[in-house]
């Protein structure tokens, strides 16, 4: 069986390498992606339409806002699915804890905990920077949310899960994940109520004291904040359930 698997893998690899010759060269101006009028429109008009210097954020959060909204929903559903599979409640939770093969010291290490104590504020500040500066420099809600979630995971790694759950419990994390999607969809719905289409942020200029372009700029920050809520909460909830087999107690 292993020999057949190896043969299939090698054959597929050869096929993929052969097919890769048909890809356009890196930075090819004549490639379909570069020659498309849509690309030219984004490159020429993003700054005019939205005042956002970082084209990637403008495309993700504004031009393709619908896509990004449901990407956030996908992350939410992934988190719910992992919790649904792993979480133990009721009679399951009373079962004796399974002995781990490689148990590590129960006492938190002095050096590790003090380093984490110094690092976590910096990490969280950087997460806010990445989130708030996503229009101007690389970054945005997904990256900021993951960095924020990682700071809570770091606390759970250095001490144990209850220490991190004092700051963000898994139940609250699930609630926050839903709130993030509600923020995103709420901004879309609000612009619909103001007379535009769903996620047509320019209509928010009726209620904000800014131009239509700047309304899109600010609404993008709003939806990125929603994304960051969901991603932070889901990352922490996934780690909490994975590391403790859904018991939510003890360390890694």
């Amino acid at each position, binding site marked *: 069986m292993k020999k057949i698997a190896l043969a299939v893998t090698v054959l597929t690899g050869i096929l993929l390498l052969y097919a890769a010759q048909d890809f356009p060269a*890196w930075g090819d101006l004549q490639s379909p992606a570069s020659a498309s009028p849509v690309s030219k429109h984004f490159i020429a008009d993003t700054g005019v339409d939205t005042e956002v210097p*970082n084209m*990637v*954020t403008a495309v993700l959060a504004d031009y393709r806002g619908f896509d990004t909204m449901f990407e956030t929903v996908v992350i939410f559903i992934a988190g719910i699915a992992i919790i649904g599979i792993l979480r133990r409640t009721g009679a399951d939770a009373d079962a004796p804890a399974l002995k*781990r*093969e*490689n148990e590590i010291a129960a006492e938190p290490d002095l050096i590790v905990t003090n380093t984490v104590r110094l690092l976590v504020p910096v990490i969280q500040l950087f997460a806010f920077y*990445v989130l708030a500066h996503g229009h101007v420099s*690389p*970054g*945005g809600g*997904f*990256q900021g949310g*993951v*960095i924020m*979630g*990682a700071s809570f*995971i770091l606390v759970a*790694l250095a001490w144990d899960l209850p220490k991190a759950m004092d700051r963000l419990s898994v139940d609250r994390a699930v609630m926050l994940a839903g709130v993030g999607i509600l923020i995103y969809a709420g901004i879309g719905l609000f612009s619909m109520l103001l007379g535009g289409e769903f996620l047509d942020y320019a209509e928010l200029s009726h209620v904000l004291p800014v131009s239509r372009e700047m309304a899109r700029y600010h609404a993008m920050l709003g939806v990125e904040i929603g994304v960051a809520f969901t991603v932070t909460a889901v*990352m922490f909830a*996934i*780690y909490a359930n*994975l*590391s*403790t*087999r859904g018991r939510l107690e003890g360390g*890694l």
Partner: protein
Amino acid sequence: MTGLALFNLFILVFMVVAAVISLRVKDLLTASVVFGIYSFLMCLLWAEMGAVDVAFTEAAVGAGVSAVFLVATVFNVKRMSSD
């Protein structure tokens, strides 16, 4: 060969090595860490091609959080792979 092409070749060779190691090694903890190295090399490659947003996501999600998820899972299953 220019410096950039050498850099690319270096990263691509190491990526293949990391991929083979993480698949072949028996110790699943080693496999997870080497998989994190693979993600980090991928992130370098994205950054070198100018896709900084993608590189940032790869660094945060691929090399950071998903490596932690894999390690957390390895601590809850048998550490040695049976095949």
